[in-house]
């Protein structure tokens, strides 16, 4: 009889399963545009120098402060570096630090939040008070103090940025964990003697993946901005290396003498990339959100 009656409960939710979020994302034009911008900038910074190779280490005093022209499309700066090449060179640092720091922050935050939420009780209370305390101190302030003391290189900058910005993701993941840890499949696992580590690694983290990915994109955007702040104040990567924030800082004196090509390109690059990452984050959040679409 079971076979005959099963027709009354068709597995209606069988439609295309997990492919749906991807299609939703593809339908969000702003998010797709954001993705395109990020991909273009990555190509520009990492492949661009192969097509447009310039010398970004030696100064060339014969070529200083040139306006955009045929051989220097974006002109040159006060020490004779080609500005287009410098935009690629600085972008490499900005994007690398931003991506790496954003991901590092998300990883730390995810582990911290998942453990706090899963453990509950006083462990949760202590871990989350640490987060509260951290959030009470502005990240920028910590960042400035630390970079003033240590003058970090690229790797150092990534680690410092990661260590100051994991707090918000940890709260998000903790909230997610609180609802997931009481799901029947986690209870079932615990009832048959499964370990806590397994519950977190196999059930809670995979099911938080949407929250984690969305948090990561916003973290990357924030990290790129933070690098720009720090470098703008002269505390980021040190010359001859540079990044977009550093370029802005170097060009600031030139702004009043009409040399716009030293300010506008790096400024625009920062705005575009940060907006693009935020658009991707919004798109991903909508794509993963099942409740919003009844």
């Amino acid at each position: 009889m079971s076979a005959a009656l099963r027709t009354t409960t068709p597995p209606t939710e069988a439609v295309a399963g997990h492919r749906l979020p991807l299609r939703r994302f593809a339908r969000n034009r702003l998010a797709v545009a954001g993705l395109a911008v990020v991909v273009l900038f990555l190509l520009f910074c990492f492949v661009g120098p192969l097509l447009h190779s310039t010398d970004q280490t030696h100064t060339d005093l014969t070529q200083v402060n040139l306006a955009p022209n045929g051989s220097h499309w974006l002109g040159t700066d006060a020490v004779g570096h080609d500005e287009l090449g410098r935009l690629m060179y600085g972008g490499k640092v900005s994007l690398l630090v931003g991506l790496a720091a954003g991901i590092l922050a998300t990883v730390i935050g995810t582990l911290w939040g998942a453990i706090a939420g899963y453990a509950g009780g006083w462990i949760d209370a202590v871990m989350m008070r640490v987060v509260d305390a951290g959030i009470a101190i502005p990240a920028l302030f910590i960042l400035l103090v630390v970079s003033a003391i240590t003058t970090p290189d690229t790797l150092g900058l990534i680690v410092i940025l990661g260590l100051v910005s994991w707090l918000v993701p940890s709260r998000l993941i903790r909230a997610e964990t609180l609802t997931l840890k009481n799901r029947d499949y986690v209870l079932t696992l615990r009832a048959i003697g499964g370990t806590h580590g397994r519950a977190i690694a196999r059930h809670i983290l995979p099911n938080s993946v949407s929250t984690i990915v969305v948090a990561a994109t916003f973290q990357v955007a924030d990290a790129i901005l933070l690098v720009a702040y720090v470098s703008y104040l002269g505390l980021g990567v040190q010359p001859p290396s540079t990044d977009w924030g550093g370029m802005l800082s170097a060009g600031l004196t030139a702004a009043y003498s009409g040399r716009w090509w030293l300010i506008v390109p790096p400024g625009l690059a920062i705005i575009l990339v940060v907006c693009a990452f935020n658009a991707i984050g919004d798109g991903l959040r909508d794509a993963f959100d099942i409740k919003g679409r009844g």
Partner: protein
Amino acid sequence: MNILEIENLDVTFTTETGDVPAVREASLYVRPGETLALVGESGSGKSTVALAALGLLSGNARATGRVEIGGVDVVGANEADLSRLRGRTASMVFQEPATALDPLTRIGAQIAEVIRNHRPLSAKEAASEAVTLLRRVGIPDPEQRASAFPFQLSGGQRQRVVIAMAIANSPGLLIADEPTTALDVTVQAEILDLLRALAADSGTGVLLVTHNMGVVADFADRVAVMLQGEIVETGPVEEVLLRPSHEYTRRLLSAVPRLTVAEPGDVPAAAPEVPTDAAVVELRDISVHFGRGRRTVRALQDVSLTVAPGETVGLVGESGSGKSTAARVALGLVPPTSGSVALFGTDLGRARGRARRALLAGVGVVLQDPVASLDARMSVGECVAEPLRVHRRGMPAAERRARVAEVLERVRLPRELAGRGPRELSGGQRQRVSLARALVLEPRLLVADEPTSALDVSVQQTVLEVITELQDELGFACLFVSHDLAVVQQFAQRVVVMHAGQIEEQGPTETTLLHPGTDYTRRLIAAVPVPDPVLQRRRRAERRAALAVGGTGATA
């Protein structure tokens, strides 16, 4: 004239994955003072018909056909016309009283609002009428209770308030969508009595949407049976429930677990035999308290029960009785405040680390919610293999796959299902996957917490059959938690009745459920509606007589 008339109603939902027809060519009518029950399994379209009747379908639904309430067309009506109609000529009672009321508004004010929406009364007049309505639906101390917030009331009382709002303007038509499904059986019986009395007093026509054949037998005059969006059979309740003509109705009715009730003059069977073997699980004087100080909730008090090898023990009770907590204590998920749990003869509270894990390897678990029980990020095969990964870490992958395939076939699922995602399965299939996972280690004890409560009756029957069959084959003991006395009667050898955190009584199923020893169990059994209108009418009369004598007519 009919108060509700539906003719050739079609409803189609537009979704991201295409159009889904929900209702096809449905026609029905409700006469004043009459109750029409619209029955069917989940997804049959019965709720959609109810919503369409009031023009309450969601934005992605398209309805065509003719729907008239008291002669007024609904399908083509604009929102302003519908607002005049709703709450005045026709009103609705929903399933979940907790979400049907505004939590931040006093109940008297909520009822008064419904009144003043449609009638030119002063605030004071409306407030006094709200009190009258509360009295009419059986809320004690209506003057004081009118200023209560919804959270201060029990579930049954909330549903009474919802009903008071629905009848506030003496509507000609009341649409009740599963009005008692979220309630306990004793409360359900009271709410059904109330609705019946209201309909009889005022000549209101009722469209009752339900999946529960017992409720139908108790309440309806006529029945319409829906299957996959179509009405397949309509007729008087005796006709449809006792002599169904459509093949599907017959199958549906045969799948409904029936509570066998004592005939007058029956004598209790022989003395209960007490299981003498060493228990698989034994709870000794278990108490569980949640919270501290004055806020302490005593979830369990001095609960002792045992399950012998190979035996099925049914743990029954209403919501809040502590039956699920007791099962969780047996699994070690909830630590007891006092008392001890022995699993396979070993004290679970003292076992630590590896010893504890080894003990728990002998236990299988199936929980209620078919959606939440399986991790949607895993494949069916991974879900079933999880206990093997926990307890047989050295097992080669090929052997594990073979074992998963084997156990899937045991629960009557094709082995190919291992590669699919839980989302692609129906509720009944998912519960069988849960069962496969529970049995993959060949446990000596299966703990099943309402494993079929979320399923349709026909699917429930299959799942229960599979459990019984495997139990015969593998010989595991089963602690079966359920609120459904009929299922427990069919399924368990012994039954433990719980009430308010304590064990009311326990004994062999035949004697305990046919000739209960305590008042509470008697009331519980009397409140279960049976899907036979003739028998149910007699039981209702008996229950009322008993309540009148006992003077226990207190409202829930």
